[in-house]
């Protein structure tokens, strides 16, 4: 086995460890050279390949606080890096609620993606969708609504969200009709102002407690 230089650290928000954060180690050119997921206390250990010196760390945070955090590898004292989410922005509650009056068969899923957070450069923000292994994600996270709403703590900044309920026949009855997918056809802020549509979803600015409303419409799924 070759010797590897480990990078140890913690992802925190106001000193609280953040579990389920995916930490990426980047080389000087911005390429992902290693990744690890934080444990219950927010700690992580990165093991880059032999001879590779990570220069930057970037964490995709899907724990209690949704967001991102980045720092240089050498910022930590005593060989341990602390990636402080609060260094980039305070966290605020974001509530996304359906306005549909009809009952949907299942809970829709909400995808969240931070587009701009604090002082993080746009080029760095793109790492939130960096491909790791075979998985090429299109959002930071995907979570099911509960009771027609979702409540998340997210970092202050500009966020993209998309709500939908996508289904198709997998096991199929002999007399199956068309399956139905629900997609959003409008979203509004607390004052009723329509949100800007973007890439099938909407943009929302989070600078304090934020509530948005979204409406879903059924779309028949075509079959071949």
């Amino acid at each position, binding site marked *: 086995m070759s010797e590897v230089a480990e990078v140890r650290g913690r992802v925190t928000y106001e000193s609280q460890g953040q579990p389920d954060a995916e930490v990426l180690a980047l080389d000087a050119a911005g390429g992902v050279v290693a990744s690890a997921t934080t444990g219950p206390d927010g700690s992580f250990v990165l093991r880059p390949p032999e001879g590779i010196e990570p220069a930057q760390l970037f964490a995709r945070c899907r724990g209690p606080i949704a967001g991102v955090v980045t720092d240089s590898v050498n910022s930590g004292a005593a060989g341990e890096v602390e990636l402080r989410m609060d260094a980039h922005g305070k966290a605020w509650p974001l509530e996304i609620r359906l306005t549909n009056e009809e009952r949907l*068969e*299942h*809970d829709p*899923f909400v*995808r969240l993606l931070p587009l701009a957070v604090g002082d993080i450069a746009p080029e760095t923000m*793109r790492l939130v*969708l960096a*491909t790791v*292994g*075979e*998985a*090429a*994600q*299109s*959002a930071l996270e*995907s979570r*099911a609504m509960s009771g027609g709403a979702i409540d998340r703590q997210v970092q202050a900044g500009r966020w993209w969200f998309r709500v*939908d*309920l*996508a*289904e*198709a*026949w*997998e*096991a*199929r*009855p*002999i*007399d*199956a009709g068309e*399956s*139905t*997918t629900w*997609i959003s056809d409008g979203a509004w802020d607390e004052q009723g102002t329509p949100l800007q549509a973007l*890439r*099938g979803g909407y943009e929302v600015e989070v600078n304090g407690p934020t509530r948005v409303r979204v409406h879903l419409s059924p779309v028949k*799924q*075509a*079959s*071949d």
Partner: protein
Amino acid sequence: MYRRENRSPPKRTETEPAQKASPPPEVAEVIALQHSAGNRAVARSLGQANSLARQPAPAPTETPADLDVRYHLAISHGDWAEAANLLDIYPPEEMEQLAAEVTDTDQLVQFQFMANLGGRYRVGEAIAAVLSRPPHAEHIRIQRLEHDWNTARSTEDWYELAKLTCTFSDADIEKHLAMLHLPELQELVTETKGPHAAELLRLTEPAERNRARKHLEMCRFAIDNSQWLYAVTLLNGLSDSDQETWVAGLTDPQVTAIAPLVYTMFPDQDRLYSRVNFRQHKTDLASAHPAVAGGMTIGSASPGAAVAGGTVTTSANDTDSSGTSGWFGQDYSGPDATNMGWLQFLAREAEKFDADGNSLGFDTSMVTHAAGQAEPRHWGTASEPYWTVDTLGASLPFYDSPDTGSSRGASASSATQQAMYDRPDPNQSVVADAFDTWFWQTDVAKVVMRYHFVDYLVHGREVVYKSSMDVVWSFTSATAATTPARTNTPGPAGPAAKLTAPHYAALRRRFPDWRYFGHE
């Protein structure tokens, strides 16, 4: 018992001392001492006062006929001390003959004991000679054997017990094994399988047979008397065939009482765990596959594979009665089809490609539903598939199990056929998401959506066959007017006995009560 035989009177000369009519007072003292202080004390006393060993001569007036009468009277009264004294008067050549008139071995032994105790050693030797001949010799051997056998049993010397048991006759082996408790029989069986197996070969079959019989008796007792923990332990020790029969024969309340113990005590790969869980679903399974006609026109089908007395075929392009093609099918035709069932597992992936055909990775962001199925499911990658059970079943896991209404996966079920058919749709929302890139990302030119199906044929609680099918669509646009044609490609198929670990995990996630299927 004592037996009088005709014989000549004892021969004596006139010079021989006459015999007296009753034991001398010293003998009476010895007998009294024996009664009060025990034989050893008497023996010690005799050792110190050897004069007691010799009795005075009989009275001169006694005739041989009188002696005979007195001797036989003593014998008939069981007065062995007196009998020994009298027998000692007879010439040596008659002693054995007279002693042999006592046919009961136990009485002879007692006779001998009292003779020796009274110092009538010649009499004792004569009796010993009788005892050394049939039938007494065999009787004594058996008594000694019984004693040793009981000692070995009480001291739990299992090898010795097994060895001694082997020396009995066949009938006595059975008699003695019948006396043993179940744990003792288990010890003997263990001995017959151990390093002394060859020596104990004679015991191997009867020991195991008696152990099995006793095991069943105790099992019946434990179940009938609600001794559930003991019942579970005993059920666990039954042979496969017995366990199958006994668990199947449990009543509903009995299996309800036993199941929690079994699930706590054994892992879910265990045979008893599997059987008890299967028994718990007896009612569900009775109506699991109602008769239904498939109505499919079968397209290209694989050569039939022999499975469980029937044949399994996989078809890749079947057409339903409305003329819609593109169905794939898994068909078992043969006996006992009503006890067959198909379990289908599905892993889905959506791979993105650029214009040059380079992979851009798999879209794993979305969580979607299958129509008619409550469980949300993730999208996986080639190396990390996300498996789900694929059925409309609300409470049963088979492909043709009904939802909360009466809708069920397309199937054909009869006494001689158990077939399932599927024609999944691609998920257009995932296709759209895969094509919809951010401005800094490489444009996606093609999305290949693959559904990997694995179908297990189960017979009762046994997994017997595994087949697979890949359904693939290749999209070049998120907004194409028509969905591209599917390609159904049969994959590996063959006999199987277990669900793979990922498939079993998917089953447990959605149907946590269905745990009887063999699995890794």
